[in-house]
């Protein structure tokens, strides 16, 4: 019986209803088509920061296909800034994101899609990638992608970018207690993004925020041991920058 009901229960339209009424909600879409997925990464050019992005050639390593990396940049308000395409000419692309490149001082988000040049077979690429942050001209400190958020169908990627959401739309009351002791640090910053197509709310230790789609928000915290995040978004896991004396640390929460 369960086997018979499972396709109905997991039908996307039924999942929308489940998510609407909070009945065993489902966050992530299981896709059957060829696609390239991307995390919603954070770039920083504020203060003295610059950002390094590294992606390996998943299309060639896994599918023996030539490909390029398509990068889409958004400012802190979620407004599209610019896009670039970088062909994979070697195993790893190393891309610098600074004020000269973006024409912006601040922070925001970006997407990175590993797009295959000629689609002839099935491929689902969720290239996780790594982001490094440097202060001044120093070497970067790295963090990996947080969660796959957006995708592009590999066979519908021409002309205008048609971004799709890896998340089902949802409103799930979620509590995320970050599993780290913040008390020994001078201060920390939490970066939240909103990959959904509607606004979400974030409450981080009583800092209340509404975040619009694709918007990036920074919250500064100090003098606390724990950080409790409450949200109607089901995956409110921020990127954390922590500072101690002249040093900094970055990781996903």
């Amino acid at each position, binding site marked *: 019986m369960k086997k018979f009901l499972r396709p109905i229960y997991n039908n996307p339209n039924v999942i929308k209803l489940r998510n609407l009424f909070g009945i065993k909600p489902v966050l992530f879409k299981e896709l059957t088509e060829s696609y390239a997925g991307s995390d919603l990464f954070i770039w920083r050019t504020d203060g003295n920061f610059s950002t390094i992005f590294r992606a390996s050639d998943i299309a060639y390593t896994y599918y023996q296909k030539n490909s390029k990396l398509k990068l889409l940049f958004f400012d802190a308000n979620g407004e599209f800034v610019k896009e670039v395409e970088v062909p994979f000419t070697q195993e790893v692309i190393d891309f610098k994101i600074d004020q000269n490149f973006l024409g912006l001082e601040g922070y925001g988000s970006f997407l990175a899609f590993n797009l295959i040049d000629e689609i002839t077979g099935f491929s*689902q690429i*969720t290239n996780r990638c790594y982001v490094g942050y440097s202060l001044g001209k120093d070497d970067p400190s790295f*963090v990996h992608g947080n969660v796959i958020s957006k995708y592009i169908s590999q066979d519908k990627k021409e002309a205008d970018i048609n971004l799709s959401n890896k998340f089902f739309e949802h409103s799930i009351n979620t509590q995320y207690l970050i599993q780290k*002791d913040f008390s020994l640090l001078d201060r920390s910053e939490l970066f939240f993004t909103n990959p959904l197509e509607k606004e979400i709310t974030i409450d981080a230790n009583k800092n209340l925020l509404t975040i619009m789609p694709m918007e990036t928000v920074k919250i500064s915290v100090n003098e606390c041991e724990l950080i409790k995040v409450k949200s109607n978004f089901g995956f409110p896991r921020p990127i954390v920058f922590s500072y101690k004396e002249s040093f900094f640390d970055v990781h996903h929460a």
Partner: protein
Amino acid sequence: MNYFFLLVKEDLKSNLSIPKFKNSGEFSKNLKLFGARIEEQKWKFYKPECIESENFWKVESDDNNFNDIYFLASTEQYDLQSNSNNLLDLNNFTNTFPDYRANLLVKNKAGAISSYQSEYPYQMTQRKGSIYSSISTLGNFHALENGVFVRNIYDKPFQDEFDGYIYDYESGSVLKKVTLITNSCNFISFEDVEDNGSLILFCKGYLGVPIYFSKSKAGNLSLEHTHPPHENIQGPDRFKIVSMIKKDLDEKVS
């Protein structure tokens, strides 16, 4: 169930902060922190020295514990584990979504810190296999220090040798071969390696977590692990594809 571990090398100690709560906010009611180390080819289970607060157990690395592993268990579960010479899947407190993580922080004498949210799943301790990790994506080749920790935890209480290779896809050659030890904290320096964007770390025989470490010219530290290769693609054949990549590389380094 998950295990937790420390990382050490010269001028580098580590602090492990294991939360008493899940990231959903649920606190453990009866779990305590225990440790295990290998002595005379047997697991020796013990109650570790740690700083315990309302929210965390904290363990600091020293000269004796850097290869030890840590886990949460009730007293009854600990007794059960103590009578076994293999690692047991004792409880599911740390099996959560998003993943339960401890904070593993490295620090040096200058006061620089870096951390990542770490765990070592029980299922990985039950299997042999190989490690495939792109050095060129996380190596920091302009930094003062640059390398990778390779941490394996294996069910059997042996400290066996296994081979690690730095392989250059561009030239099709092995640039460096190292001997690694199971159930230990291994470190491979990239000091004598030049990056060309095509370097892969491949380790034969055992699974493990590759954790890249660097110290910048200004003294800042970086610590981050690479994802397992099957997380870079989806679809029904992803494990088969990864297996073929590893098999191909296995033949190339042999």
